[in-house]
């Protein structure tokens, strides 16, 4: 007898495609309010349109690239300390 089919929704390529679309839509939606609201700027730059979106994007990209770079020096085999 065949077993009950496993729940594998998140493994399906069409789900992953939907999630990508969802992610892009959410990103755009968060920027939309910047058209309508006038954000109080404490430092000047934080009042610009889409500032926090840009900050999120750039800082995360830089963090990942920097950690990749530093990994060249810091990464080592798991048994490093046992040798």
């Amino acid at each position, binding site marked *: 007898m065949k077993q009950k089919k*496993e*729940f*594998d929704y*998140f*493994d399906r390529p069409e789900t992953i495609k939907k999630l*990508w679309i969802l*992610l*892009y839509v*959410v*990103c755009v939606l*968060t*920027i939309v*309010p*910047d058209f309508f*609201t006038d*954000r*109080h700027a*404490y*430092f000047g730059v*934080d009042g610009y349109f*889409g*500032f*926090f*979106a*840009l*900050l*999120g*994007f750039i*800082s*995360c*990209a830089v*963090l*990942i*690239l*920097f*950690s*990749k770079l*530093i*990994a060249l*020096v*810091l*990464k*080592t*085999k*798991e048994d*490093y*300390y046992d040798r």
Partner: protein
Amino acid sequence: MIGDFPPAALLILGALLVPFFKGNARNWYVIILPALAFYLISQLQPGSSWQIHFFGFDLTFLRVDKLSKVFGYIFTLNAFAAFIYSFYLKDSTQHMAALFYIGSALGVVFAGDMVSLYFFWEVMAVASTFLILARKTEKAQGSAMRYILVHIFGGLCLLAGLVIYINQTGSVDFNAMTDRNLGTYLILIGILVNAAAPPMHAWLPDSYPEATVTGGVILSAYTTKTAVYTLIRGFPGWEILIVIGCCMTIYGIIYALLENDMRRILAYSIINQVGFMVTGVGIGTMMSLNGAAAHAFCHIIYKALLWMSAGSVLYMTGKSKCTDLGGLYKTMPWTLIFGTIGALAISSVPATSGFTSKSLIIDGAIHEHLFWVWLILEIASAGVFLHAGIKFPYFVFFAKDKGLRPGETNKSMLIAMGFLAFLCIFLGVYPKPLYDILPYEVHYQAYTINHVVAQLQLLSLSALVFFLFLKLLKRTETISIDTDWFYRKGGRLFYYLMDKSLNGINRFANRVLAEGLAGFVGRISRRGPEIFTLGVLIPLWSVSGSKGEKLQGKIETARAALQTGTAPVGIGAALATVFLVIIFLLT
């Protein structure tokens, strides 16, 4: 007068009774103890009591104010959840160690003087070591050894600082430090060791991931947060803490991004989160100090929740490396849901507790017009979502299915996680109960349209970057070298260098002095008289006509006589004359 009983004593004395309970009774007992302590704390009236005169010091075991109470609440609340989580555990040693550890953390928080604070500080270090040792693996033993050594170092710095401070001020009272001198800086270093501030932080990611499943949950809350409490109490407004805190936030992210072991990811994220609190203390305004306390409160809850979900995975699969895990959403949906709530809370997603507490610190920086501090904290906030908010759940529960089908974890674990997940959302939606118990009065509204939109922009773009850069973030079976290298490998390097240099000097000295010079002096002093005497006599005998065998015979006789000290008086006198001449010439 039960209201005046120190909550630390309740847990520490309670720990001694643990062995008398068996089976489930023991597990119920350890759940009830922190619940009782929580009630006890809620009944405490502000003021100082339990003052004892001890070796000329006035010790205060119970100093109650809003600051000590807020930490008391969260310490006991978290202990309550942690013991529910460990209901399956049949190990009274771990329960006792945990109660001693949590009890002494409460002791630190309610200590009104520095002597009793130091005492509880050290008990914490010792008791917590047993939670690591209880894993009973060789790796755990090694890291427990390093853990205790680092904490002994930190404790000694603290002690040295306290001795200097008490000598200078003549008082053991523990209040905000204003003088900046050797004593207070040593105290600060001792505390920063426990706060896991780089470069003295490596003990944390080295040891916590080696602890037991429940040990990791308990350890994640107390050592670093007692340090945060001590900083709020003793060092508010010390600008150096802003720099240290900002470094911690970024440092934790970078290492968490490199890390493969899920519990090590969480360990590095503790450093990142404590960085926010340390920065808040450094800013030192009422708002930012409130923020540090509130963030410690919320952090303990969601970090315990994250450690619990990671612990459940480890408990069910026996694995903790991202490269071995993946696809667990199919069989551990509840662990996934609760873990994700913790991950969202740590990322300060609106409607979770991280949002209502971290905002206090960031707005504290804004109010002081600290542009760079504000910018770094915002960058770090985006980075938190990257390493803890998405990376942890994604690689453990989704990513590539590794064929693990462990099934859902046990009920007590799920109940504890559900309880903490509820608190994460409750404090995010309705933060007033938390704001009411903070040390200073709060007039703050976290939910403004601008603030929510800014945070959502930051986080959703951070998520986008994560998935765009997913190839770069692919896990590898590696570890990253951290500052513990200096005492793990550095020790061997030190040994090698010392071996080569000092033993080299030793060998050289042995050859030249012990074997060479000493032998030379020995030969000289033994054969000196003979050499000098014969040096004078041989020419004389030659001149007087002795030759060949006859001369040889005379030399042999004189040598034998000199070596045995039976030289004829004439020769002895001649020798004495020769020495006198030499001495005369030399002087």
